[in-house]
């Protein structure tokens, strides 16, 4: 049983390759964070080492060991694992993997080497990897996982089969949450919308209320800033700027919340309420949407995109955010336009 949901096309492809025993030597699994890349990777590893007739069974010893990370032939390197430095996956890690790759499987049938967040491979490490991908040893399957394809070397991509994971429809996620995890329908609905097609996020948010609390804090801030004074906005820009310098990802997450909020405003303005993400804030969104013109929403969304892009390219985060805050429609402009 594949545990991945909503990726039927990929699963059919893999099932067929497994039946014909014609799996590629390397795959790149692409898709947004939490969409199910790791789950799929673990499933592929299980399928390759499963003793059952219909792999992956998820029940045999190999499958269980792989799921718990105890199988000798399934190696996963990540940015945080002990073997790598914190900022990139270095050449030493790849050398180690190369050594492993040239030895036969220890206890299973096939070695599976997983590189999580492959976009963090250093250039030397990537080039080193090319050599092994070019002349793959027998019984080894490489799985490169990445959320940001443009940051991978084109030479690496061209040597692997690309599997692009699509966002999972909210209904499927909702079903997964209610049926297999026993979560209340109302919460499941909210989570399935909030996760934006990434079941992994929904599951971790269901298990950890903290994620939802954090989101609520973010949303409240975003909601209030439209009415806020210039001083409040600048304080916010400064806060977000300092978060960014400490933890890029956290700041980007906040920017994403901004995007969902304004996206929702646009959807409501356009008369497509059913599709909004922040279902629990429907009333507030409606009220704000009424006060804004479609053009204002559109312009601010463009602004948001540009700011996000600019700070990811290392412009001064605080300046960019202050400029964004200045462009945020204010109460006065709102009343002007009404």
């Amino acid at each position: 049983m594949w545990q991945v949901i909503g990726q039927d096309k990929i699963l059919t492809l893999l099932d067929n390759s497994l039946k014909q025993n014609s799996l590629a030597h390397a795959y790149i699994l692409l898709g947004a964070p939490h969409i199910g890349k790791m789950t799929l990777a673990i499933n592929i590893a299980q399928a390759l080492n499963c003793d059952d007739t219909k792999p992956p069974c998820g029940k045999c010893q190999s499958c269980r060991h792989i799921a718990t990370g105890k199988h000798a032939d399934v190696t996963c390197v990540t940015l945080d694992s002990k073997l790598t430095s914190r900022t990139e996956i270095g050449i030493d890690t790849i050398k180690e993997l190369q050594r492993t790759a040239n030895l036969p499987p220890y206890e299973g049938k096939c070695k599976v080497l997983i590189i999580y967040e492959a976009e963090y491979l250093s250039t030397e490490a990537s080039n080193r990897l090319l050599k092994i991908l070019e002349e793959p040893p027998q019984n080894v399957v490489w799985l490169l996982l990445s959320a940001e394809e443009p940051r991978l070397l084109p030479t690496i991509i061209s040597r692997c089969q690309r599997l692009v994971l699509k966002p999972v429809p909210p209904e499927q996620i909702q079903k997964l949450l209610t049926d297999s995890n026993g979560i209340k329908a109302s919460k499941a609905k909210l989570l399935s919308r909030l996760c934006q097609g990434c079941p992994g996020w929904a599951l971790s948010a269901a298990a950890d209320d903290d994620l939802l609390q954090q989101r609520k804090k973010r949303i409240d801030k975003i909601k209030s800033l439209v009415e806020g004074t210039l001083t409040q906005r600048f304080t916010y820009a400064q806060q977000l700027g300092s978060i960014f310098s400490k933890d890029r990802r956290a700041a980007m997450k906040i920017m994403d919340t901004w995007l969902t909020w304004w996206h929702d405003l646009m959807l409501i303005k356009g008369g497509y309420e059913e599709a909004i993400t922040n279902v629990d804030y429907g009333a507030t969104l409606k009220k704000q949407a009424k006060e804004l013109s479609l053009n204002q929403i559109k312009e601010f969304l463009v602004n948001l995109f540009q700011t996000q892009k600019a700070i990811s390219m290392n412009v001064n985060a605080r300046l960019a955010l202050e400029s964004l805050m200045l462009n945020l429609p204010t109460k006065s402009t709102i009343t002007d336009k009404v």
Partner: protein
Amino acid sequence: MKLSCLQENLSRGLGIVGRAAAIRSTLPITQNILLAAEESRLKLVATNLEMAATCWVGAKIEEDGAVTIPARLLIDFVNSLPNELIDITLPSNSHAVEIKSGRFQAHINGIDAQDFPPVPSVSDGVITNVTSKALSDGITQVAFATATEESRPVLTGINAEFEGERLKLVAADGFRLAVHEMALNSAVGEKAMVIIPARTLSELNRLLGDQEEPVEITINQQKSQALFRLKNAELVSQLIQGSFPDYSQVIPQSYTTRAVVDVNEFLRITKMSSIFARDASGIVRLLITPGSELTPGKVTVSAQAEEIGGNVSEMDALVDGEEAKIAFNARYLSDVLSILHQPQVAIEVTTPSSPGVIHPVGVDNYIHVIMPMFVQW
């Protein structure tokens, strides 16, 4: 699990398997040693997924059981205990081992033995056995020539060719080649060629030091694993997959000049020249001059380093053929000279650009080929 054994025995056992435990690994349990009480013996197992070492230690078993505990911690603790009886207890439903000896005691948190990667079983296939001294000599004479760089994985191992009653060990790193041939105690049924990781063989060599009995070698049918059975221990090695390059063409079939020299003298003057060669890409130059009726032949070893200086040393030699010049990397020369037992060695060369051959005099089971360095004479 409940057992008691002598510190001396446990310490020796841990010494045998300890080096096989992984130092850093993505699979944390490989940094542990498996302790299993079975049939009046304590079994110790360690693996780094490249090799797996198993060793049995005599012990008084009161209750069966198994657990894994961190290798470093266990070894260091056991080695610091006096040579007395050690009691090892593992309470049921727990992974914390209690180790007690006289007035000393410790408890170490372990991991469930169920999660320990099983040692691959190697049974059928090619089976033979060889004198441990011969195998040890063979490994010593070729292991240093393996490549340390991973870019050509097959060269990081030693190619072992089993045929009839002979075993040939070959190692090469692209600049040098070492071939050692030895006799097997029993003939193999079919010819087999496998590449054994140099790290495992060096480890095996260490274990061979204290054993006189022959070693039993088994290679499985898929040619993926090899088992070396020693007196009280077993070493299973993963075999490097791939084919070893055809080295036979590299070995020159003839020579124009052959010089026989004293090994120790040659090693001494090579090392002397290497001091100067350090600043000159390690290059030492050999000039072989044949003797005439009155003067003996000689070999001149020299090194020249720009701006620093140079040196020239001479030694007597029995030279056969015409005058010859050749340059080598000093380290490659001293590496091979320092592992030879024979008193005399022959250097065979043709031109300055073709490989040189080192042959110990008096035996015909070892040959070493070194690629020359290109220099302006």
